[in-house]
């Protein structure tokens, strides 16, 4: 990095995390170093169990790192993890007893945001994720893909600066998944959030991201971290481009799967 690059939005420097289980120390993440610029969509790939979820939990403030530095906020500073982070998981994890609108409102309630404004914003977000008309439905009335859209709207309700997604499309069928990829790109470009996305799909890691971070088998270290220089906006036919293939091959090689 040259001296004139701006302070990154997220700076992970030699991050290390140990879990204590029954008196034993288990090293889950050994040395993760990664800079993320504001507005980037960073994909995080690595073998199963290598510590990807752990890294997200550190970013979400759920765990403190046991070593290294975690700095979030960049030049704007004053980053409040609670207000400025949204989370999406593999399962939509909607509350079965709440209507979709009330599910989306959950973070707003927990943060104690003004009700009226939050409801209005929830409606707008449901429109944005393509769920207009589903406000009063219950989760069971929605398909898996629609539930995940609602979960994305829920992650956006408190207008966070950073969205953490942990294999968000891993439970969807292949077709729905492709569709949701395009939706995510649209939502990302409309909302201009920084997104860190853990995925097992190397195609997804290349297609969606502006930057890709590859972790080694656990305890995680950096295998590589590089920008994905594909034209934006991304289109499905890019998947057949040579550059796309080069990126996927590179990741396969880094994961030792070539």
């Amino acid at each position, binding site marked *: 990095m040259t001296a004139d690059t701006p302070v990154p939005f997220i700076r992970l420097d030699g991050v290390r995390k140990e879990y204590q289980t029954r008196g034993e120390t288990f090293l889950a993440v050994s040395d993760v170093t990664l800079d993320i610029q504001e507005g980037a969509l960073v994909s995080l790939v690595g073998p199963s169990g290598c510590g990807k979820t752990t890294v997200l*939990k550190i970013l*979400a*403030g*759920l765990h403190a790192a046991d070593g290294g530095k975690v700095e979030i906020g960049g030049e704007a500073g004053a980053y409040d*993890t*609670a207000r400025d*982070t949204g*989370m999406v*998981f593999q*399962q939509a*994890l909607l*509350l*079965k*007893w709440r209507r979709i609108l009330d599910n989306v409102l*959950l*973070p707003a*309630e*927990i*943060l104690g945001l003004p009700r009226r404004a939050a409801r209005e914003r929830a409606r707008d977000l449901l429109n944005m994720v393509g769920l207009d008309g589903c406000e009063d439905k*219950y*989760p*069971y009335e929605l398909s898996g893909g629609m539930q995940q859209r609602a979960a994305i709207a829920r992650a956006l309700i*408190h207008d966070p600066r950073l969205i953490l997604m942990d294999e968000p499309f891993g439970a969807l069928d292949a077709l729905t998944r492709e569709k949701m990829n395009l939706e995510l790109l649209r939502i990302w470009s409309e909302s201009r959030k920084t997104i860190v996305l853990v995925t097992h799909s190397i195609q997804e890691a290349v297609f969606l991201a502006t930057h890709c971070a590859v972790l080694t088998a656990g305890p995680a270290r950096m295998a590589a971290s590089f920008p994905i220089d594909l034209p934006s906006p991304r289109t499905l036919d890019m998947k057949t481009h040579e550059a796309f293939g080069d990126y996927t091959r590179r990741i396969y090689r880094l994961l030792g799967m070539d």
Partner: protein
Amino acid sequence: MIAFLRRHWLAILSHVALIAVWWLFVALGDVPKYIMPSPVETIASLGQANYDWVNNTLVTGAEVFGGYALGVVVGVGLALIFSWSATLNAAFMPLLVSLNMIPKVALGPLFIVWFSYGIGSNILIVFSLCFLPILLTTARGLKEVEPELIDLVRALRGSRWQIFTKIQLPGALPYVFAGMKVGAILAVAGAIVGEFIASDRGLGYLMLQVQVTLDTAAMFMSVLLITLVGVVLYALVLWLERSLIVQDARVR
């Protein structure tokens, strides 16, 4: 009403058929009345004012509902406390599971020694029978929360109380009701056993009285009324469940 009939006609039919079979069996088989009375004879026994049907039913009903209400409050309450304190949970949950192995009806005679017989000790027997299943299922429901959902709330710096009221408790309600349904059936059995052991009122007491005179019709009627008390309680629980829980979130 018409809609109700149309929807449940098969169930209604099977109930009516059972009564018809009972009737035919008694009539065609020439079964003596002291072995098995006909449905009409059973109903007719209500005419015997000295059996004090209304009061005896009310007494049994009070025992069932009183003990059951106590069981729900204590069962759900303890489950909440255990879900808050890992220490209390580790100390007392295994103990309660052990205590659950005690055949509660065997405690009946003890309760009567301690508290003498009457509505009070029968309420205690009912309570001791039905509070543990409610406690155990509620405790399980409170534990059965997706850890990621807790992460989501904690990442927003949500309080324990928020996790509890917004996620845990509504999520546990289907379990609470599953326990309450089991408890409802035990509650009725508990009241009758209590009255069998020692009492001077109630439908169980009445059954023992009429048994001596071989008034089988009145015994049948007592069983029907006991069942009615149970049906009312069960229907109340179902109604409450239906009004509190979204259709799909129910444990079936």
